[in-house]
């Protein structure tokens, strides 16, 4: 249509438009597609934030049952008293007020993948065009284990405070026993970090005490050299490390870890059970990883290989990347970008990158670090560590300890602020 027809065709309609009532809402395309994010940890909060940061027209709803999030990162510093729980607690005000994320403080009771709806505990159903699930972890049951008596403290908050309370009450010369589950579990260096920090705390505050580590793995799975040095040198005479220990049951009243290598009696028992994806993954039939514990997803978009339009990020996904807050944040950005592209009818970016970094405090003024950059490998459809990018610090240092707070505060801000 040429200029003298189309322009004037349009022009002739301008008058007609003037007589009509103007629409009060934008049409479907500009109104914004609906993306629901379940779970407000490092993965979910980052996804919600970046979706709105990159595409403010999206209608993004974050469903999280708790009004505040207690970070597992730095949480071991609550146990030794260097941080308060409040120091590592975050809310969703910035996501709501600055980015326009709808915050729904409720539990989810069900997901209908075919109908593309999420049902809240209040029986309200919310429709979505894309759903992102970031429910973190759950634990496989251990016979006799009562978390009210034997805390895992592997999700922050009350469990953390319970463990701290028990440690504070432990008599000098007492025994702290902790169990480490088989990999994969949340925060690979975390249990070893905790053991070292507790040893440091006991060394000062409870002389004569012991730290017994019962590791289900065949060896220290990360930073082996650094942690071995800490256990054998820095905390020699305090830490005893045992590998290939399978936890079979717990006597919660007597604080006994019952294992394949015998019973370990503790004054304070810290059991970190075998991990699985957040429960909504299994109840929604998304745990199609061969182990039955994780959700298999495409590393390009984190879309479930089981149910379309549902994406799983963070600790619950089964790509083989580490389960930790930093890389959960990284996955969330890849997922958010892919969701935006998919909603626009495009394909996800074909060569996504993620990275993992973690600083571990090992005393009140020293820390180590561990890192790796992951790239998409099309030949295996998986994320793999880029050669030359993986590594750990050469032992511990005070400089690492200072850098740890720079890292954590930046990560907190990138996720919640």
């Amino acid at each position, binding site marked *: 249509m040429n200029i003298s027809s189309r322009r004037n*065709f349009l022009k002739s309609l301008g008058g007609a438009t003037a007589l009509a009532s103007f629409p009060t809402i934008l049409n479907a395309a500009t109104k914004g597609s609906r993306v629901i994010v379940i779970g407000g940890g490092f993965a979910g909060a980052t996804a919600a934030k970046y979706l709105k940061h990159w595409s403010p027209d999206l209608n993004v709803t974050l469903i999280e049952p708790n009004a505040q999030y207690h970070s597992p990162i730095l949480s071991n510093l609550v146990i030794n008293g260097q941080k308060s729980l409040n120091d590592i607690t975050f809310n969703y005000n910035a996501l709501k007020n600055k980015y326009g994320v709808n915050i729904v403080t409720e539990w989810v009771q069900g997901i209908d993948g075919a109908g593309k709806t999420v049902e809240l505990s209040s029986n309200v159903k919310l429709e979505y065009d894309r759903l992102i699930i970031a429910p973190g972890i759950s634990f496989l049951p251990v016979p006799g284990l009562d978390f009210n008596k034997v805390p895992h403290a592997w999700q922050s908050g009350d469990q953390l405070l319970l463990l701290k309370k028990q440690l504070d009450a432990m008599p000098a010369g007492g025994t702290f026993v902790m169990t480490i589950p088989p990999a994969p579990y949340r925060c690979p260096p975390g249990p070893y970090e905790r053991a070292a920090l507790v040893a440091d705390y006991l060394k000062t505050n409870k002389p004569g005490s012991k730290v017994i580590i019962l590791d289900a793995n065949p060896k220290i799975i990360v930073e082996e050299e650094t942690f071995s040095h800490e256990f054998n040198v820095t905390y020699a005479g305090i830490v005893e490390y045992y590998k290939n220990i399978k936890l079979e049951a717990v006597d919660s009243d007597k604080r006994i870890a019952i294992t394949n290598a015998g019973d370990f009696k503790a004054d304070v028992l810290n059991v970190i059970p075998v991990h699985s994806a957040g429960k909504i993954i299994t109840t929604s039939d998304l745990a199609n990883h061969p182990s039955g514990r994780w959700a298999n997803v495409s590393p390009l978009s984190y879309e479930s290989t089981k149910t379309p339009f549902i994406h799983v990020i963070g600790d619950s996904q089964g790509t083989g990347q580490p389960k930790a807050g930093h890389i959960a944040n990284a996955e969330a950005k890849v997922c958010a970008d892919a969701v935006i592209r998919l909603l626009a009818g495009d394909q996800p970016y074909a060569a996504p990158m993620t990275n993992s970094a973690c600083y571990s405090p090992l005393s009140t003024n020293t820390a180590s670090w561990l890192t790796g950059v992951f790239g998409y490998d099309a030949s295996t459809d998986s994320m793999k560590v880029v*050669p030359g990018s993986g590594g750990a610090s050469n032992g511990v240092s005070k400089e690492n300890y200072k850098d740890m707070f720079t890292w954590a505060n930046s990560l907190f801000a990138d996720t919640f602020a």
Partner: protein
Amino acid sequence: MKIKHTIPIMVSAAVLLVACGGGGNNTTSTPDLSKSSFNLTGTVPGTLIEAFCEDGSYHSTHSEENESNEHPFTLKIPTNLSCRLVMTTNEDDPDNKIITPIKFVNESGASSIAFSSEKDLHLDFIDLAMNSAEMHSDENQDKVEDTPREVALSSNASSAIKIIIQANDPLDSDNDGTINLLEDDDGDHIINLDDDDDDNDGILDIDDNDDDDSDHDGIKDDDDIDDDNDGINDESDSDDDNDGIEDEDEISDSIEIDEVDEVDEVDEVDEVDEIDEVDEVDEIDEIDEVDEVEVEIEVEIEEEKEKEEKDEDEEKEKDEDDEDEEKDEGDSIPPVTPPVASLPSAGRLLASQCAQCHRTDANPNKGFEDLIGEEIYGDLVEMKRENKLELMHLHANGYNEEQIRLMDDYFNNLSETKGDE
């Protein structure tokens, strides 16, 4: 109702455009718009100023000749519609006209070609290209600037305008800042707006309905809130295609019964879904909050930035060896950077992976280093060469030079559009 049909469009008789450059201030908006429109005013060289709006409506005016090179214009534009502004110099001379899409940039750097306003807006003089030599870029030689001209808004205009940022602009399907009507789909150097046969399939556009755009307004029917451009929103229009047959009657009269039945079925489902959705939304207040995308920049953001800079300065003055310092740092996360939309790109996604530890457009915390405006290419390539056992050196090893270049470009562009924050 929104039921798809293929019908020939009855085009109104052609009316020759008024010559521009010295043309009168002849706005197409009628007086009827006075109660629901705002005036966009400014000065330009002799220019045709056009607004293309989301309902397919079109509004234009010409600048008014005077003795200076800055010709004033007033264009009436409906309120509560998002529109895109286009300026054309030499518009009555097909061989020499230059078309410039306009992208507004408000005081905080939010930018988009889509905008709306409830209040009058005044623009400072816009010095447009008057010939092809003055154009910034026109690789496909269609006489349309390849990228929109960014027009920085004054404080007053910034507070009045609503910059509308959206991932999928129905008027600009490829999101390149040039609306569909100004694209040259068939590469014949004639933009669709002026082209009798946009897709060069030998069928004149007025008889061609393979573009899913019944009214040829550059908005696909699925995205068009007014399929027949009759000024009546489809939801209120009982005859969406303006063929004189009521939509309901048209369904029963249609020869293509199967197809119509399918459409009808889908339509009913959509209606039910919409009702359910409204009920649900009523129960959750927060969900009402984000329907329409508007980035309204507030003065407080500037104040927050100043506070943040002050905080950072104070931080530097602290004793770095004081362990308590880190606790304080953790207590005072600076305010957030305002949401600013951008299109998906490899650079944006790759660069976002730096934000865990660095200040970027999304992370207000300085982290190890502020990357806004930083040139990271040289540093990262040097780190790769050094190959030290340091965390950032390992990260540098994780990226090839092309990826580093993409990230470098992204952070540089942040610097250009936002300045140092």
